């Protein structure tokens, strides 16, 4: 809302609010889902970078990376514009937490960006309204050449048609630790759950460090924990069943996983986790000596020096081990995530937009960021030697090992994602697992039907 609107006379405030509501809720009547803008994914756009291809014009790209990650993405984009000098790529960064709602508003208003960072849940919602350009022809080549597996294509698809390209992979559930702190506490990386708990008890008893730094004020952080616990307590079948709706939220295996998570939070999280954001928690662990561990994804390898001090050296100063599984049976289940990009069906520049999306899925583009660190290239032909640190190489190996499950709330999207995020915060504050499960059952029934 605008600054100082409270100073308006009330009779003016009312219609102003209604105007705001109507703009937000109807998109000014300009929304045109399904309208054929002439860019129906049937273009003959060149899909490889480097040929110039006669592409021109501008391409607007919405993404969510800021800081060091934003700079890394700019480097990737520079690779495209160098190969296609007549194309201007305009980057628009929005906060990750607001990405879904902002993108939805832009599509609903009929003014979407040409290329947009998406997650599988968002792809389903937009593709269901026929708002995205099909990218099957791009995927056919990739699958044929072994750059991607069919599993990746499925994640980027809606009802059998691919609408997204993978750009950035990530593996989560990594217990990041400082080498000097491990030495000081005389502890070492562990693989078994009981040993892990014993180690945390030891750290707590010592009292020098909190066991974990957690920045749960950012809504995506608690999902990093819940997905890890779900994957490693209930297993891939239950995890994927929650995504496709075949497993209910009150399934005993699900309840057990969230109970395990609740007990862990109450045992080892700092009390003020909900008042601290990711960056502050990152530095509380990395540079301020407040916590022994941080449970985060592989991207932390890049963000830590940028956020907390350039003198921090990945590998020699800090590294990670994978969180052990509460249930041994599921110790090889890894919780992965990834950033995709989609092309708006009604883009004014379909050839350049599609070429840009194809470039992002290529090994060439992904190698640019991979060389900078904190990045896992989902394209299988990316040269492993480009990873700058052992941390990055270890993360990339884990990404392709064992059984991978894809980020639960990102895969579902929409109302269920929104409610899961807010209910996780409530679970952290209250410890009430029953209330969490009940809220999730209710929203699942509301969205998917009973």
């Amino acid at each position, binding site marked *: 809302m605008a600054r100082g609107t409270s*100073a308006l006379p009330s009779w003016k405030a009312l219609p102003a609010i209604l105007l705001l509501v109507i703009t937000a809720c*109807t998109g000014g009547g300009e*929304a045109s889902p399904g309208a054929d803008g002439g860019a129906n994914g049937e273009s003959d756009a060149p899909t490889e970078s480097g040929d110039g291809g006669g592409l021109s014009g501008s391409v607007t790209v919405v993404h969510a990376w800021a800081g060091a990650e934003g700079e890394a993405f700019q480097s990737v984009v520079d690779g495209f514009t160098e190969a296609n000098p007549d194309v201007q790529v305009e980057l628009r960064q929005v906060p990750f937490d607001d990405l879904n*709602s902002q993108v939805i508003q832009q599509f609903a208003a009929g003014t979407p960006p040409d290329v947009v960072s998406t997650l599988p849940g968002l792809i389903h919602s*937009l593709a269901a309204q026929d708002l995205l350009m099909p990218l099957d022809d791009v995927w056919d080549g990739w699958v044929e050449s072994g750059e991607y597996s069919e599993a990746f294509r499925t994640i980027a698809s809606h009802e059998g048609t691919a609408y997204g390209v993978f750009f950035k992979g990530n593996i989560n559930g990594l217990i990041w630790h400082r080498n000097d702190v491990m030495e000081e506490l005389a502890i070492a990386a562990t693989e078994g759950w009981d040993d892990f708990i014993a180690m945390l008890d030891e750290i707590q008893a010592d009292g020098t460090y909190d066991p974990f730094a957690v920045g749960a004020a950012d809504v995506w952080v608690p999902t990093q924990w819940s997905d890890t616990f779900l994957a490693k307590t209930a297993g891939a079948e239950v995890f994927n069943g929650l995504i496709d709706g075949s497993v209910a939220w009150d399934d005993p295996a699900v309840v057990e996983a969230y109970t395990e998570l609740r007990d862990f939070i109450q045992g080892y999280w700092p009390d003020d986790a909900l008042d601290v954001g990711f960056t502050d928690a990152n530095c509380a662990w990395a540079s301020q000596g407040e916590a022994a561990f941080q449970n985060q994804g592989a991207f932390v390898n890049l963000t830590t020096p940028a956020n907390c001090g350039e003198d921090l050296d990945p590998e020699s100063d800090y590294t990670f081990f994978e969180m052990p599984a509460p249930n041994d049976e599921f110790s090889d289940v890894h919780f992965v995530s990834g950033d995709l990009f989609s092309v708006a069906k009604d883009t004014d520049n379909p050839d350049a937009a599609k070429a840009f999306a194809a470039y992002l899925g290529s090994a060439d583009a992904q190698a640019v960021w991979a060389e900078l660190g904190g990045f896992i290239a989902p394209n299988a032909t990316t040269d492993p030697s480009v990873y700058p640190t052992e941390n990055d190489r270890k993360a990339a190996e884990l990404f392709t090992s064992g059984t991978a499950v894809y980020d639960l709330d990102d895969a579902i999207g929409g109302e269920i994602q*929104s409610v899961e995020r807010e209910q996780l915060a409530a679970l952290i504050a209250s410890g009430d697992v029953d209330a969490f499960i009940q809220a999730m059952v209710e929203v699942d029934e509301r969205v998917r039907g009973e």
Partner: protein
Amino acid sequence: MAGVIRAVGRARARGEGRARPGGTIAYLFVLPAALVFALFYLWPALNTVLSSFFTWSILAPWQLADPATWQFAGLGNYVEVLTDGRFWNAAFNTAIWLVLFPIIATVLSLAIAIGIWEISRGARALRTVFVLPMTVSLTAAGVLWVLVFNPDFGVLPAALGVFGLDGANIDIGPLHLRLSEWLSNPGTLELGFATVNLVNLSAIMPAVWALTGFGVISFTAGLTAISPELIEAARLDGANRFQIARHVVVPQLRGAMVIVAVVFVIYALRTFDVVWVTTQGGPGTDSEVVAILLWREALAFFDSPSAGQATAIAVLLSAVMVIGAYPYLRSLLREAPE
């Protein structure tokens, strides 16, 4: 000048100078403003009301001109909203705002305005200090207070820490206050019939800080209009400072008070920005207000056909606001020339 005023008064008494009812010229003068009002205020309002009777989502919008988008729900959206526990939770949190924010902000701004009015030196500088936060957007004010509350480097925990109070638990009857976790779990107030989550107070504080200046300005304007003879007469009658403030000053500020209170009530009813940047309505839905629920139904729950419920909430909220603004509207109409 006095002659002119007398002449105008005589002309008014004779009924001269008034627009003749039905005069075409008068209507033409009003027409541009009426068109703007109809197009940008009335039509969106009407569209909102109409859309609340249909089932639609932000990605599959209802459009008046396209019957193919009409999925008539009748009063279904209203029934859905009014039987939803989440709506009543948001309504309760909004009610907390409605009670606490206008009272705190009005009392505080009145006290500050009178305090500054009483002093003779530095009044202007002090007034500027209190009015200055008004120049900050409420979103920025919220972000600023998130830093104030930050457990690692915030001013509030640091100040409390000086007195050994950071993290202290205070239990006084139904009040369970934790002097920590300001944006997630600062405690509760048990009312018997309901529990007030004090995290709402953490979201209210930045709004009070930012908007008190408006009250200070309004009350200062009212104070300058009070006749010094009135104060002097009260003083001669033996009234002390408090009695003068209570029995002379405050009654004279009734008009300003109505305006300030109504503006604050309206803000409390539609508050969104400051809650969003401080708590996002959380943890869970502990500080979710109606405007945030409305936003979520329309935009965050974009895969659900719940935008009709969002507009139903908007209509209900508007109705309550009109009722809340009634005293102010009535005073405006009373003052309007016939």
